[in-house]
């Protein structure tokens, strides 16, 4: 009994940091409507800066001052980020806000390693809370008791801040109705900046307070952000009390989940999240969001099927690609196969994102599941390669069917957070369930059969499947189903009013995208001869997002170009620099701010401009003038 009680207290203590970070995220979202993906990065920075300061300052006062000063320093960094970056994208589509803050996260990861080195850092114990109290033979660290007391205190302080100060009243008003605050003549810019500073301060404090409990390392950001997303999805984005309750709930589930399912403890959290999503899709304490009124994207260029000339060009491109083995060596062919595989992967995400308007931040889950599907079939069932290639992607399909069902209950930022959390869950299972997946060591020895083993044969196989996949997705895009999917993206209200079951359409799209990603993963497993948890990881999901963005989110097949360009650049980049994340993150941020239409999008815009400058449109102008009257 005592053991369970101590376990319970450990859970409560872990909830403290989670609550601090999640409440910061919620406060920022409430006012600015931005889900700050970089919140985990600020948490990690808080921990690193606090480590440095508490080492520098001596004594008990030095320690506690170090914690607070570190959080303030990071808050100042947050203010700079808000002023330089976020102010430019408050009116951009959600996807771009998510991507830009994600880009920041990547940059911080490399910067942190540059400054503090790659090794784990062990911080000082907290002065005054070094010992433990005994409870029926079990030890409870006093620092845990301190943390347990801290969360309700912070909750109370935040409540006072929002109820009793003029600033707090303004923030609450802005959370409820942004236009009203603008109308009151409040300086909205500084309100946003100060709110962002508070949110970042809370995140950094959460990180700083962890140093006596946990080593500081450069993967802290993703670990916390996934937990925080789970917390805000359960608690309700924008609700501080929701963040508190859900942080406690999630921490306790983790604490006891380890006892119940020691290998796959994360399952328990997933089950609870699933139940909450079904019962209250906007979280326990969240409010149902009115659907966004703005147009879903940047432009309104209607899509068209390929013209005759474009179709010939596509065939010609494929023919040229097929001739690569005649002129190049094995290395180039392996790179070529990899590019073809990523074309499939990017095209599948593009289908979901661009046609369906559902930006998945965890699409690698289905890629990786396809790869593991191959591994299971080939290694355990010993099936021939053709059978594996046909059946392996079904694991991606199955995963997409399960997770997609829950994910499409939500949209926008919730969808992004949820897909990311799902992908992390799948990753954790692959990582922890060593008996089945081999854990970190992966599954090795998956070589293609003889007919596909040579680099040239495998290359032809890859580009053949890639061409099929891209063509199939294109056909679906212009099929009645594709139009129904676009309809749900363009206007949920109108599509429901013409008999379209949006959730079922979106779920189907999710399953299609997941299956195609599974095909890519299956080929990838054969290309590498092995499968590792990395092929389910966040960085792969982000790669896919960047490929789509680079090619052009609002084009029909920009992902193909995006994948080719991105993959070539990143292979080159890795050979040139150790700071590839810094560069990649910088590129993402820059693209979002300066180049949001992507390569193909830019080309289309140029072409349209040229076409448009020719004929005038008197009829349209006239009706516009009448409309304005």
């Amino acid at each position: 009994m005592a053991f369970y009680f101590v376990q319970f207290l450990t859970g409560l203590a872990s909830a403290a940091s989670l609550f601090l970070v999640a409440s910061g995220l919620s406060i920022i979202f409430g006012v600015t409507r931005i889900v700050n993906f970089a919140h985990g990065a600020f948490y990690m920075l808080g921990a690193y800066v606090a480590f440095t300061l508490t080492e520098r300052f001596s004594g008990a006062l030095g320690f506690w001052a170090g914690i607070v000063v570190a959080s303030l320093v990071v808050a100042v960094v947050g203010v700079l980020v808000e002023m330089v970056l976020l102010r430019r994208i408050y009116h951009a589509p959600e996807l771009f806000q998510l991507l830009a803050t994600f880009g920041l996260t990547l940059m911080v990861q490399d910067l942190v390693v540059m400054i503090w080195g790659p090794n784990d850092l062990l911080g000082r114990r907290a002065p005054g809370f070094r010992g433990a109290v005994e409870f029926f033979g079990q030890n409870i660290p006093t620092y845990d008791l301190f943390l347990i007391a801290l969360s309700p205190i912070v909750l109370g302080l935040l409540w006072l801040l929002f109820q009793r100060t003029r600033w707090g009243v303004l923030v609450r008003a802005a959370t409820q109705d942004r236009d009203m605050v603008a109308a009151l003549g409040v300086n909205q810019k500084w309100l946003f900046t100060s709110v962002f500073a508070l949110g970042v301060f809370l995140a950094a404090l959460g990180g700083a307070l962890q140093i006596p409990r946990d080593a500081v390392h450069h993967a802290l950001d993703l670990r916390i952000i996934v937990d925080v997303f789970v917390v805000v999805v359960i608690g309700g984005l924008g609700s501080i009390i929701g963040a508190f309750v859900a942080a406690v709930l999630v921490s306790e589930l983790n604490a006891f989940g380890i006892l119940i399912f020691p290998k796959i403890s994360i399952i328990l959290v997933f089950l609870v999240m699933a139940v909450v999503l079904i019962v209250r899709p906007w979280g326990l304490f969240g409010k149902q969001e009115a659907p966004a009124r703005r147009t879903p994207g940047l432009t309104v260029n209607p899509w068209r099927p390929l013209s005759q000339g474009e179709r010939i060009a596509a065939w010609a491109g494929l023919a040229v690609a097929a001739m690569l083995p005649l002129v190049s060596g094995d290395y180039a062919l392996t790179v070529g196969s990899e590019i073809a595989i990523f074309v499939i992967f990017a095209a599948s995400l593009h289908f979901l994102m661009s046609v369906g308007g559902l930006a998945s931040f965890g699409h690698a889950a289905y890629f990786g599941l396809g790869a593991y599907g191959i591994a299971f079939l080939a290694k355990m069932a010993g099936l021939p390669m053709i059978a594996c290639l046909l059946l392996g992607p079904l694991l991606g399909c199955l995963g997409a069917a399960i997770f997609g069902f829950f994910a499409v209950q939500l949209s926008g930022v919730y969808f992004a957070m949820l897909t990311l959390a799902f992908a992390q869950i799948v990753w954790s299972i692959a990582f922890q369930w060593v008996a089945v997946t081999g854990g970190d060591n992966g599954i090795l020895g998956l070589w293609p059969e003889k007919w596909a083993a040579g680099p040239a044969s495998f290359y032809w196989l890859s580009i053949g499947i890639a061409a099929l996949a891209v063509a199939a997705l294109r056909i679906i895009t212009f099929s009645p189903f594709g139009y129904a999917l676009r309809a749900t993206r363009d206007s949920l209200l109108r599509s429901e009013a013409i008999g379209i079951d949006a959730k079922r359409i979106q779920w189907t799209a999710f399953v299609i995208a997941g299956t195609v990603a599974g095909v890519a993963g299956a080929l990838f497993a054969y290309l590498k001869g092995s499968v590792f948890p990395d092929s389910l990881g966040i960085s792969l999901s982000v790669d896919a997002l960047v490929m789509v963005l680079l090619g052009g989110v609002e084009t029909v097949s920009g992902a193909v170009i995006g994948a080719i360009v991105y993959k070539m650049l990143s292979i080159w980049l890795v050979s040139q620099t150790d700071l590839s994340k810094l560069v990649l993150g910088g590129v993402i941020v820059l693209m979002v701010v300066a180049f949001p239409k992507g390569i193909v999008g830019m080309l289309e815009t140029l072409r349209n401009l040229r076409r448009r400058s020719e004929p005038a449109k008197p009829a349209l102008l006239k009706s516009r003038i009448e409309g304005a009257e």
Partner: protein
Amino acid sequence: MSTAPTLLSVEGLSKSYGGVHAVREVSFALRAGEILALIGPNGAGKSTCFDMLNGQTTPGAGRISLLGGDTTGKKPREIWRLGVGRTFQITATFPTMTVRENVQVALVSYGRQLFNLWASTPRFARDEAGRLLELVGMSGYAERPCGELAYGDLKRLELAIALANQPKLLLMDEPTAGMAPRERIDLMRLTAGIAREKSIGVLFTEHDMDVVFEHADRILVLNRGSLIAEGSPEEVRRNPQVRAIYLGEGLVYDARHREGLPS
């Protein structure tokens, strides 16, 4: 006309938001081919009524029956399948598609082809979509991106979309809001013509009293959520309570009507 079957009947329909009674105990019936106007000042509860009728909002209380069947609490898409077309006060269309494609999507849904992964939509029911666009006078705009349309044209496109499922009932929430006076008259005349020809029942709201009096067979007057008058245009026009509300709003419809607008 009075022998036509009842299309829609509403009994004791109510909805409140927090303390606000948006709609209170509203009852009425609509016959096939009848054009019924629902009028009332802003905030009277007209849009809330429409939203409950097409399933957008669940009624707080009351019963809605459509074509004899109970549709209270059904989803918008289920009600649409029964043959109800709807236009919105703030237009809802698909901005990234062309005008024709907007109508084609509705036809796809009507033809139950939503899960068809193979056919080519740009070729799907092209002519049918063209006919609907012609009907509302939008043929010239068929290949335009819908996001570029003027507001009045969007309203006409919405009408074409609403007609795609060969509706028996049209629900039109302020179909002419934001239009020039000339366009208002044209659009309502068009709607009335189509409705009479195909014997479609129409429930519409409208602020322009000339339009209302010209086309409505019957008028319902809503104020603060409650029906305060019901009857032929002549009866409603004479109703002192109605006059009070509209005079209070500064809308002297009587005088304007007598002057007459260009027809």
